């Protein structure tokens, strides 16, 4: 049994809040490539501005986007770890509180009924998965809500099959239009239950932008859907052109004989993601 102290977790999560001031490396590469090949002048100008913005944000440590999102924290917790000095959830929240304050992130989190702001971006959205070993991997995804608001869940019938899956993903991206700040990354979760499908979709956003699925069938489906989505010509910021999406990432999970769930979770152009291992 390995001990990890509460304070170590607080410090680690607080450090990950640097995600708010820098675009992920794979997103930078994908944005540069998109700008390079873009032929629509309006879209190219928007992409160019976004690239310059990311450079400015990183060099002056400013939030890339004012929507520093809800802090989505994914913990892979080794079964042989014992957390000492407090609850994991409290440590994560304290890390988010300190880290977000350090970078001057706005307070974006509130009670859904009273609409009274918690004032410190807590609570985080915490997902814990127990894994083998005695390490703890923590990933922070600051998730903006222009894109989160465009999430969709379709409970298809088995008869609708792969064509139904494709139709659903395209419908979700089309309905989202310019709202989720394209160019986007499209996270898709196929199978499971309603909540498992949605979580699978979100977990796909933790991949490097454009990293294909390890499953050959899904990797092929990702390529097809990326082409179909970019043929929609929504384009960067909805200004047209061929860069509606930078990537499509698909995950799957076994489901019930009665269903074919398809969840779509969209990541905006400000792909912010930091990871550490304790």
């Amino acid at each position, binding site marked *: 049994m390995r001990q990890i102290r509460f304070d170590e977790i607080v410090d680690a999560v607080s450090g990950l809040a640097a995600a708010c001031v820098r675009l992920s490396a794979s997103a930078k590469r994908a944005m540069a490539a998109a700008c390079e090949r873009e032929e629509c002048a*309006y879209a190219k*100008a*928007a992409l160019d*501005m*976004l690239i*310059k*913005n990311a450079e*400015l*944000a990183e060099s*002056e440590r*400013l*939030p*890339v*986007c*004012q*929507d*520093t999102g809800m802090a989505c924290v994914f913990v892979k917790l080794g079964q042989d770890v014992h957390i000492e000095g407090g609850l994991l959830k409290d440590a994560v929240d304290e890390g988010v509180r300190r880290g977000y304050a350090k970078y*001057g*992130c*706005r*307070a*974006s989190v509130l009670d859904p009924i009273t*609409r009274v*702001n918690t*004032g410190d971006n807590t609570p985080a959205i915490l997902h814990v998965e127990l894994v083998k070993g005695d390490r703890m991997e923590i990933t922070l995804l600051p998730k903006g809500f*222009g894109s989160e*608001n465009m999430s969709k869940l379709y409970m298809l019938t088995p008869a609708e099959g792969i064509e139904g899956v494709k139709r659903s993903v395209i419908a979700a991206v089309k309905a989202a*239009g*310019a*709202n989720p*700040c394209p160019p986007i990354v499209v996270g898709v979760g196929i199978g499971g239950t309603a909540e498992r499908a949605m979580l699978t979709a979100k977990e796909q956003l933790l991949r490097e932008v454009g990293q294909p699925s390890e499953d050959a069938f899904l990797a092929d489906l990702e390529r097809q859907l990326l082409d179909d989505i970019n043929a929609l*010509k929504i384009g960067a*910021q*909805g*200004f*047209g052109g061929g860069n509606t999406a930078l990537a499509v990432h698909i995950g799957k999970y076994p489901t019930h004989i009665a269903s074919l769930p398809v969840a779509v979770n969209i990541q*905006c*152009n*400000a792909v912010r993601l930091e990871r550490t291992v304790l």
Partner: protein
Amino acid sequence: MDAKILNLPCNKEALAGLKAGEYVLICGTLYTGRDAAHKRILDAIQSGAPLPFGLEGQGIYYVGPCKKDGKIISAGPTTSYRMDGYAPELYARGVAVTIGKGDRSDEVRNAIKNFGGVYLAATGGAGALYAKAITSCEVVAYDDLGTEAVHRLRVENFPAIVAIDSEGNSIYER
């Protein structure tokens, strides 16, 4: 890119020459407002309570900024459709310009046309760059809303694109 200077506040005549797809650089004053502030402004209009600012000729920027030591450090646009239910009434009461990102409803587009306003799109995700175009900010109403409070901003060469012009033409139409 060529861009026209747009000084705000303005007379609506100044907007007639702006065409969908043209770039503008905004100079002068902008008021911030997003979901919660819009709800309060519309409630105030209905109950006859004083408004946080005179609406005539003004520009409203849909943004909830990040601030550090009282200075705005990131302030890109939020998605506009959430303010679609409020915008027609505000255009009718003299608001000249709204700034956000994404397409608007037919009701907003009609109001823009009927009252001679414009809707400008800013680049969603470019918060740090926009903060550089804001030279000062002060909260003028609804302080308790935090980032959603109404701020008066002074801006210099704030870049945007005419997304819906005063004749109702839209760049989102394809």
